[in-house]
């Protein structure tokens, strides 16, 4: 299998303060990878180094063997689409917002979108279920709907890699599952490689097929959910006592939290 995204001895971070060091991992084409870790472990810093918002100090990030920092902005936006956690609440029509995904394909002198652009936007609005809102303003949609529109916009960029920064963090479980099911479907049907930051370890275990566990600016463990999500790793990184078991249906690892009271009671036994 070819390495699609390769992070090689990466060092990056903020000039005065937080730094990531010695990050190495590969993501295969077509995988659904997740970045997990506690707050402040460097998930977002790693994410931003791939999006180009943080400059790389050492090492490199290769996409299809091309150094990512040498790719021109528009070219990069054709390969990598990004969905962030905060909703797009601007006063923009949903259709216009989704059409913005065609920006990287437009020439400087092209003011309006072509028929093909509209067809693509329509196709992905339909797929994500926001077609019925196309004449509404983004600010009128709920958080979950905005996130679906953001995914439609990302798909309209026709990317090879979809980066998501906690796409489900503000949503209830039905919307969480709806969005992750959608991403899973895109991953499988469109052979879209997905890399997402996700806080919820259970969702990470259920949906991802590759996980990167970050801790204190370093990569702690990487591998399949079964390899990464065991209680030893989690207790070490999160400093929290957990019980890991297998989800009876999906056979994926599931994590149970235990309250302090329960923990104390069981100590006496």
């Amino acid at each position, binding site marked *: 299998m070819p390495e699609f995204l390769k992070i090689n001895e990466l060092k990056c971070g903020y000039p005065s303060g937080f730094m990531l060091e010695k990050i190495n991992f590969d993501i295969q084409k077509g995988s659904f990878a997740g970045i997990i870790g506690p707050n402040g472990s460097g998930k977002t810093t790693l994410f931003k180094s791939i*999006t*180009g*918002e943080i400059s790389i100090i050492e090492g490199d990030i290769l996409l299809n063997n091309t150094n990512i920092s040498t790719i021109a*902005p*528009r*070219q*990069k*936006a*054709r390969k990598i*689409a*990004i969905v*962030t956690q905060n909703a*797009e609440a*601007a*006063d*923009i*029509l949903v*259709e*216009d917002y989704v059409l*913005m*995904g065609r*920006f*990287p394909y*437009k020439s*400087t*002198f*092209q*003011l*309006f979108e072509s028929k093909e652009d509209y067809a693509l936007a329509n196709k992905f609005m339909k797929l994500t279920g926001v077609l019925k809102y196309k*004449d509404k303003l983004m600010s009128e949609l709920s958080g979950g709907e905005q996130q679906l529109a953001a995914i439609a916009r990302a798909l309209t*960029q026709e990317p090879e890699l979809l980066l998501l920064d906690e796409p489900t963090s503000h949503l209830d479980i039905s919307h969480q599952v709806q969005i992750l099911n959608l991403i899973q479907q895109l991953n499988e049907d469109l052979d879209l490689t997905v890399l997402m930051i996700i806080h919820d370890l259970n969702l990470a275990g259920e949906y991802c097929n590759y996980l990167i566990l970050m801790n204190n600016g370093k990569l702690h463990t990487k591998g399949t959910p079964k390899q990464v999500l065991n209680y030893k790793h989690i207790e070490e990184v999160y400093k929290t006592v957990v019980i890991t078991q297998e989800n009876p249906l999906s056979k994926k690892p599931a994590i149970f939290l235990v309250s302090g009271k329960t923990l104390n009671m069981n100590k006496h036994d």
Partner: protein
Amino acid sequence: MKAKYIKQSIILLGLFVLLALSILLALSVGEINFSIKELIEITRNKTGIEYTIINNIRFPRILLGFAVGGSLSLSGVILQGVYRNPLVEPYTLGISGGAALGVAITIVFKLNLIFGIYMLPLSGFIGAVLTIFLVYILSVSKNHFDINKMLLIGVMISFISSSSMMFLMSTTTAENLHSIVFWIMGSLDEPNFLLVKTVFYASIAGLLIVYLFANPLNALRLGESKAKHLGVNTNFTIRVLFISASILTGISVSVAGVIGFVGLIIPHLLRMVMGTDYRVLLLASFLGGSIFVIISDVIARTIIAPNELPIGVITGMIGGLVFISVISKSKFKTN
């Protein structure tokens, strides 16, 4: 055509019609009033005092009003887009303050008597350019713009130049003081047609350049980092837009003085009726600004005829009142 563009096309068409009407009004109203029929006749004959009035007095004013109104309104809509702040207007960044200071220095030290009639607009333009330059270099760090820092620096420089100007005004002669005040209040009365033409061509060129950045400006509505994610070269875009808006404002101010409010209210009103798509908003703002300034000038020169009010008085009063009445009635959100 897409349904969403129908409304916007109608508004644009309406603005063109309004512009034509306001030009007709400005041509026919004044110390001597002409009917449309007379206007046609006079422009056909090309002789007589009437033709001189229309061709040499009214037409240059209209052309200047068109260019200045369009430039100021266009600068306003651009800067509000770049800064994502609805209260920014061309004068917020100190451009007008810098221009006014340049002119005040010229008047106080009588430089215009040494260097000729071009010295006044030239010194205004130099003042504006120096201010832009100062704001620009002070807010770029490591080749990256800090938009909020830039805004603050602009406001501060604006304060500094207006204080310096007040210092000059309080220490100079009454005659100079009168010239400075008169210049600051703004007027479309510019006897030099070459200057009028310069402002006109600059405003059209500005509009064309800015249109190349309409799509990036649209993407910037999502914020700088999301625009970057879409492949927008935000640094370059912001730089070009800032410089274009500043130069447009600088040229307008140096020829016509400080005509206030245009860059603030016209873009606002248009955003309320036609949304935030810059591909139509840029042109609409330009036309709206032109109409507003041309009509304000007609009022300024007729309301207390044979005397003339400074046009800034009219734009401020009418603009402010219209704006307050519209904004208090609507459920308009400021972002």
